[in-house]
């Protein structure tokens, strides 16, 4: 399975965008490994819970291992160390101290690293390297398991402190050691946001971002690019062609998701870069995005060479049916189907048969579980669709399918669809699956019915 290694806050943003597209079926299944010091802020929680729609036993994260974040250093080890404290102490030999002082000026040595790297990638990478074998062993182990037909994508930015310091060396570590024969691709961001206003002296400023971008780009071109089969490089143009392509604004003290077109566009690179590599010698090449209207992304081809609008229509359709299936009304219908004069076909013969297998005493519980699962699945679609609405704009009317329009407006149509799509029994299974698994199987029928 293809692996995405998301580095820093930008990496988390790309991972969240990719999660949504996997949930919609527009991207193939992916495994995720996130490397970031921030594992509990709003963005991180959103990623780990997929917008609070992951409920163990009911719904899964669209990405394998999507709920785990690996901090690049052990936050519990020392209370409030200075950078130099991590490497030199009174017992350090004079020679070792000389080498440390040769590499780092006095200001850098005095940085309190628990507060972040203050836009100093040299510090970020050094701490990362010191800890990578311990803290990040699971990430590299995952990388080693990626098969020869699959790929590894490393997503992150050149601009901040932690991510900018770490991304080049994640790539180099993979390319030189852990995934030497695996195809590596980069989803690399230059500037995509403006710094917080009213920031204190120690936080990142626009000047810092610009500086890091330049130094990071210089280093990337020389040292990192050769390890990558291809790189998608993304950054703010001097003149934004559309309001939705303007820079995102960070706000001091806030760590929520900053939704932006760049992230979902970068996720398209997961499909496009390997495609390009199949037809041309792409090693070391760098690719960019071109757009004038974010809504044009709806017309780009995604998995199976289908346009994104097709997946959006499918998702809207399926969500609509799931919401109905999880509603109190349909729950009532399901209960009635097992009543004295109940008509199983009202809820779909196959569904009725499936519920019946649990035995009459369990019917109510099973119905509740099925409904809960469908509601949660619907919320996952909602989480993905709402995002696309925000970053790309609503799906243009011209791409709305008749079936979608009908289901959006007519409850009768929903009932008929469910009755029809859930009419045939599930394949016989030896063991009785849990109700959420049954719910998922019926969900899949809805998905597969969309042509």
């Amino acid at each position, binding site marked *: 399975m293809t692996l995405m290694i998301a580095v820093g806050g930008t990496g988390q943003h790309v991972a969240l965008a990719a999660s949504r597209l996997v949930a919609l079926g527009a991207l193939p299944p992916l495994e995720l490994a996130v490397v970031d010091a921030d594992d509990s802020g709003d963005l991180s929680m959103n990623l780990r819970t997929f917008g609070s729609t992951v409920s163990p036993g009911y719904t899964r994260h669209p990405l394998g291992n999507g709920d785990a974040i690996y901090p690049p250093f052990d936050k519990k080890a020392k209370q409030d160390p200075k950078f130099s404290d991590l*490497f030199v102490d009174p017992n*350090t*030999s004079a*020679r*070792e101290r000389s*080498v*440390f*002082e*040769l*590499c*780092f*000026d006095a200001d850098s040595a005095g940085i309190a690293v628990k507060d972040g790297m203050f*836009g100093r*990638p*040299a510090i970020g*990478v*050094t701490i990362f*390297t010191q800890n990578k074998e311990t803290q990040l062993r699971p990430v590299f182990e995952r990388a080693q398991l990626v098969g020869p037909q699959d790929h590894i994508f490393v997503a992150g930015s050149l601009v901040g402190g932690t991510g*900018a310091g770490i*991304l*080049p*060396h994640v790539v*180099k570590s993979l390319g030189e050691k852990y995934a030497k024969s695996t195809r590596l691709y980069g989803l690399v961001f*230059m*500037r995509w946001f403006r710094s917080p206003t009213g920031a204190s002296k120690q936080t990142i400023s626009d000047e810092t971002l610009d*500086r*890091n*971008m*330049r*130094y*990071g*780009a*210089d*280093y*990337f*071109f*020389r*040292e990192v690019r050769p390890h990558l089969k291809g790189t*998608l*490089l*993304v*950054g*703010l*143009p001097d*003149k934004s*062609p*559309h309001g939705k*392509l303007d820079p995102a604004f960070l706000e001091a003290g806030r760590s929520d998701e900053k939704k932006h077109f760049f992230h979902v*566009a970068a996720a*398209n*690179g997961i499909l496009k870069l390997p495609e390009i590599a199949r037809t041309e010698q792409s090693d*070391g*090449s*760098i690719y*960019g*995005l*071109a*757009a*004038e209207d974010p809504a*044009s992304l709806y017309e780009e081809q995604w998995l199976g060479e289908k346009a994104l609008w097709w997946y959006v229509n499918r998702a809207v359709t399926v969500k609509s049916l799931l919401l109905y299936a999880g509603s109190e009304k349909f729950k009532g219908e399901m209960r009635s189907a097992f009543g004295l004069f109940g008509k199983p076909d009202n809820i779909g013969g196959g569904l009725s048969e499936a519920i019946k297998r649990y035995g009459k005493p369990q019917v109510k519980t099973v119905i509740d579980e099925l409904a809960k699962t469908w509601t949660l699945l619907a919320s996952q679609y909602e989480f993905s669709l709402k995002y696309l609405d925000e970053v790309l704009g609503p799906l243009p009317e011209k791409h709305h399918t008749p079936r979608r329009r009908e289901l959006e407006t007519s409850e009768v149509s929903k009932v008929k669809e469910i009755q029809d799509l859930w009419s045939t029994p599930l394949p016989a299974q030896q063991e009785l699956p849990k109700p959420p698994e049954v719910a998922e199987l019926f969900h899949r029928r809805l998905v597969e019915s969309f042509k």
Partner: protein
Amino acid sequence: MPRTVLLPHWEQAPTWTGLIGKVFDPGQHVPGPWKPRIEDAKSIADIEAFAFPTPFAWAEMMATVLTQGLYEHPLFKLYQSLVLGVTLGYLQLEVVDLTSFAFGKVLADTDSRYRYFGLLRGSSRNREIQGSVFGGTSPATLFWPSPRPSEREWAALGECVSGVDGRLDEAYRLLADLRELLAKAKKWDASDKRWMSGLNRVIGDRAASHENVLYHLHSCSVGPVKIAMGDEMRPLYMPVYQERFSQDFLRAVTGTFKLEGDRVTLSDDRNVAQFEITVPVIPTDGDLVLAGTGNLVPKQGQVRSYDESVRIRLNDDDRGKGLFSYLQPIHQTFRAKPDEIRERPFFYPDTLRLIVDRLGDAGIPGSDVVFSDRAYAAVLDSSIPRLPLASSIDQTENARISGFVLTYTDGRDRRQRKAVYVESYSGVEGGVDVGDLRAVGWVLWSYFIGAASYDGQIRDDELTPLLDARSGVPFASAAVHKRLTEQPDEWKKCRRLAALQRFVRAYQTSSEKEHPPVQRLCAKAADAFANCAWNGRVIPNGRPSRKTQEVQAGQVQFVIYRDEA
């Protein structure tokens, strides 16, 4: 609105129709508008090297300065001080295996090219800077300045390399020598925007020394620094100006040697250590070359020969093991031939460079080439850079080198060997007469006129052996050379034209190519002696002598003649 490429400072329209298209080919560098803006820095404090995502951020900053050709940048000024500081010996290069300590392992893990890392530390030449670390080494830039020394310390280093000690000119010429040698070996490319451009700028258009005599005779090497040359990484040894260093080292090679831990100590007859040769013990994944195998460390001010000896003790002899016995691991590490070391001396430590440079083919253990002790002595006392390679001495006259190469088969191991008889050769600061041929010629003459006899050895009337065949071939003994040099009457006694003519005639018969090489040697030696004794060309005359004697000397057999008259 037309489609826009979503990258900063990008003016061209997209050349593709879909969302994603190519913007850079693999060989293209970072574009100008994205380059780091570093030209405005006025001092080290203004430099934000930490923005590079590597712990070697200052090395990266130095690389950027060189790549952008910013020769007025504060870092480049310090770079100049580092280069001159090393060349003048005010900075010593201390090579460290980073994997030998914890922080070093982190560094080496980020970039394995730096594993064998050089610290540039103030030497004992100047107390004010002694011990302070001024910089490090890098594959891209050669050296880079540390951010830690104070302005006062940098000023002190700057003062050292400003020429106050009167050696600045030599330092520049020495660096120009290095540049010229690299160019001759096709390893120099000043258009390469890395260390070569920096070094080129430091040297400017200063000329190298004639025949690079400063490099060959008056420098020691430090390093190596793992350096980028084109697409490959090579170990480069940097020269440090040190007058007469080559001669001093060879003088020390007349002494005794002892292996002590990771060093071979060269001592004189008072057992005073004069040099140490490093033979480091390294981990199994280590690199002997980069760890500094074969480096020379001088131990004392004045070097003296062992008991006024002029015998360079490369091979084992009556005083014990020769230096070659201790250099085996070094030779096994480098596995280089003499011509390779001569063509690219900057890739080899002093232990190989100096010996091969001065002694040519004889400078490698197990060599099939041998010179006379007299030739080795000339190397010790003369300022001539080097003994010639055997390949450069032809049977025909050469404007700068005259002599004879005797090829023979060593009966002990059936190997083909070469004994080089050097008559004279000229170099940078004049010519030198070694006189190997005429000395052998004098021995043959002594027998010819009955002043010497043969009883298994050719001896004079005091029974002193006149040939020294310890090397396997007959060179004239030291006593013969001493006699010819210190007793001018010897030559007067030989000025007998008729006898000389018969002498030359006797050996002329075996001067043609179809005769064994040793006989041709005798013919050449006879010629050389006769011409020298007569101080002019001696034309062969008279009947060839039929009084012959077969002689065995070392591994060769030949015929000598007695005058019938």
